[in-house]
């Protein structure tokens, strides 16, 4: 299971446990997307908002809600990208990362009425996945496009993924509004979608990575260090918004 998928499973498990603990009707939809993902999507976000709203309703009606720590065990046995010594100190090293996630999919909770979330936005890539480089018009393609799964040497400079920033910016500049591009195959690169969202969109959906109305989904390959690598800046629109 890739890192994004695992994160998705963890977050889903947390939502399930909170819902169950508070008697909130909640049934999740099985994700059928097979490729690399970021671990969350509009559907997951809607489920989170739904639970948050339901918990607020319970609070306002004077009922006690139980959230604190109800899913601590999920994380406790799920070591995603955590450095080894710290995990050892926490007593978590060598524990399973999968077993804790086991639960019955499409589980209907006791006495619940299935929650049918709004029609989820498209989270699967189109059949022809557009890979970085394919989108570039020849005149702006200054470097060889990276091959998925391989990291061009010129990008692997210790702690300085800055060349990637310009490359991604170039890709964005070569796209038409409304297009979606999937960029993948890079180690040590973690695109922080919130950054661009803060500067480019109205804030309707906090997790959508959008630049110039182009939705960008970036995948990356875990190498045990990528979580520490930040790639936040410079993804700006042409008008600087």
């Amino acid at each position: 299971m890739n890192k994004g998928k695992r994160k998705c499973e963890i977050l889903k498990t947390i939502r399930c446990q909170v819902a169950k603990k508070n008697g909130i009707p909640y049934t999740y939809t099985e994700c059928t997307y097979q490729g690399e993902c970021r671990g969350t999507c509009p559907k997951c976000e809607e489920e989170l908002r739904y639970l948050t709203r339901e918990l607020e309703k319970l609070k306002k009606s004077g009922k006690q809600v139980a959230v604190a720590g109800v899913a601590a065990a999920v994380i406790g046995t799920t070591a995603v990208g955590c450095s080894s010594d710290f995990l050892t100190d926490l007593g978590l090293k060598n524990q399973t990362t999968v077993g804790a996630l086991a639960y019955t999919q499409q589980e209907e909770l006791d006495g619940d009425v299935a929650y049918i979330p709004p029609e989820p936005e498209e989270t699967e890539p189109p059949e022809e996945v557009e890979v970085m480089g394919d989108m570039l018009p020849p005149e702006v393609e200054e470097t060889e496009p990276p091959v998925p799964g391989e990291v061009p040497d010129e990008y692997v400079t210790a702690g300085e993924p800055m060349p990637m920033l310009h490359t991604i910016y170039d890709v964005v500049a070569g796209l038409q509004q409304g297009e979606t591009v999937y960029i993948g195959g890079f180690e040590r690169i973690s695109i922080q979608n919130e950054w661009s969202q803060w500067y480019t969109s109205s804030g309707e959906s906090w997790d959508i990575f959008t630049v110039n109305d182009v939705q960008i989904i970036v995948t990356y390959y875990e190498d045990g260090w990528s979580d520490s690598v930040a790639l936040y800046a410079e993804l700006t629109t042409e008008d600087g918004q």
Partner: protein
Amino acid sequence: MTAPVITCDRHRIATDGVGVTTLVCFHGCPLRCKYCINPFSFAPDTRRADMTAEQLYQKVKVDELYFLATGGGITFGGGEPLLYPEYLSEFRALCGKEWHLCAETSLNVPWEHVERAAKCIDVFYVDVKDTNSDIYRRYTGQENGQVLDNLEKLTEVVGPDRIVVRLPLIPEFNTESDRESSRILLMNMGLTQFDRFTYKIP
């Protein structure tokens, strides 16, 4: 007051500590580390959002359910988050005591900043680089006397359980022997939690 926020990274799991966390990075850093992974955190032309603590809180609280359910919260990084201790304090007042707040810091800031942060931060991740002053100076361009003084005081104030010391092996700058010397010195200071790892370089 506002602080220059570079980004927020949601849904970090067991990366910055306990539970599900959101990493909030600030602009500004007193160090110039040779292998800095976030050079834009001090680059003058880096875009940033000058946000009030309230604005930041409104942004990140979408994940409150995850934070509370897993014992997670916010990890402040950067850059150097302890450049903004008042901001951190304001944020704590907004989010309440249930969120777990961490700071990834070099501690190379005035003690008053650390003291202020100690009142609102649950766990400090302190990247000491190397306790050897020559190594530290070569690697960061700064002195480390303030770091060690602050670390000693912080240990007295919050106790070793709230401090995780990062001890990197820095290629071409320190050795395993240097790192062990640092660990022994810090253990004698009362510190008990160490995160040992190796910086990757080309």
